[in-house]
């Protein structure tokens, strides 16, 4: 009954894992990955407005690739 407000713990687990697994795949700590993500957002924001909560970093193994998915804010011009 009182659990209504609690977030699904499976979603929490999935979010934690995604960050952790991506960090370990490129051999850096989750904290550093978060810092890098913030820096990427900051940098891109200088040029295009970014949807900050819709940015994700993933890592692919072969060939080793870092993929940043960055959602851009809708403006009257890029609709």
């Amino acid at each position, binding site marked *: 009954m009182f659990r209504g407000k609690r977030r699904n713990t499976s979603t929490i687990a*999935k979010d934690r*894992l995604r960050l952790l697994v991506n960090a370990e795949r490129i051999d850096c700590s989750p904290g550093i990955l978060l810092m890098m993500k913030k820096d990427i957002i900051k940098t891109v924001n200088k040029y295009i407005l970014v949807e900050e909560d819709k940015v994700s970093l993933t890592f692919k193994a072969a060939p080793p690739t870092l993929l940043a998915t960055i959602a851009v804010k809708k403006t009257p011009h890029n609709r």
Partner: protein
Amino acid sequence: MSEVIVVTSGKGGVGKTTTTANIGCGLASLGKKVVLVDTDIGLRNLDVVMGLENRIVYNLVDVIEGNCRLKQALIKDKKFPAQLFLLPSAQTRDKSSVTPEQMKKLCEDLKSEFDYILLDCPAGIEQGFKNAVAGASRALVVTTPEVSAIRDADRIIGLLESDGMRNIQLIINRLRMDMVKRGDMMSVEDVVDILAVDLIGAVPDDENIVIATNQGEPLAGDTSLAGQAYLNICRRILGEKIPLLDLTEKKGFFRRLFKKS
């Protein structure tokens, strides 16, 4: 054409040995000639899960050191004596008594006799893991839907890939559909999404597994949900296209009513 498959996980206690025993049993029931090799030197377990612990005379290290012939060390299974065999591990030695080259040679020797050679890998990423992986051309990575097990599975998949393993498939063990439905356990899709690897099957958390292990009789192929799930995995190993089993427990109204927890 025979195939060497390693069953691995990184994290301990996720069900590697149970999985190996049940897949071996399932493949044997489907008419294949199978040998299970326990590569966990110093901590053997597969013998008790198979219920063959009292029949061990020689072991893996004896074979590798030439103290006996390969056939002398193979133990016939109780249920499928013509199809299923166990090569037990040594209990009083350590992992450094075997090298990856020796394991490769052993797997090659076994290939002439068996359709499937299943290697039960020890937990961890050290020598024992390297030994077990050396001779295999296919890996089944076992995980549970928990953060720690999935993290280790990802590490193992990375190590296998960098080792040149092409054929890596995932088994998700101990799923509890009631918890998945509540949103308190990651689903099969969630786990596959994170690990980005092919799924070969999911096995429910089933008390029949404990009962079967107590008796030393794998349950692959029986009427239990886990038994069916294991048999489906075996069929997929053989290349059949089988849809994923519905893991939701079918409970009768009265059973649900009287169930205490």
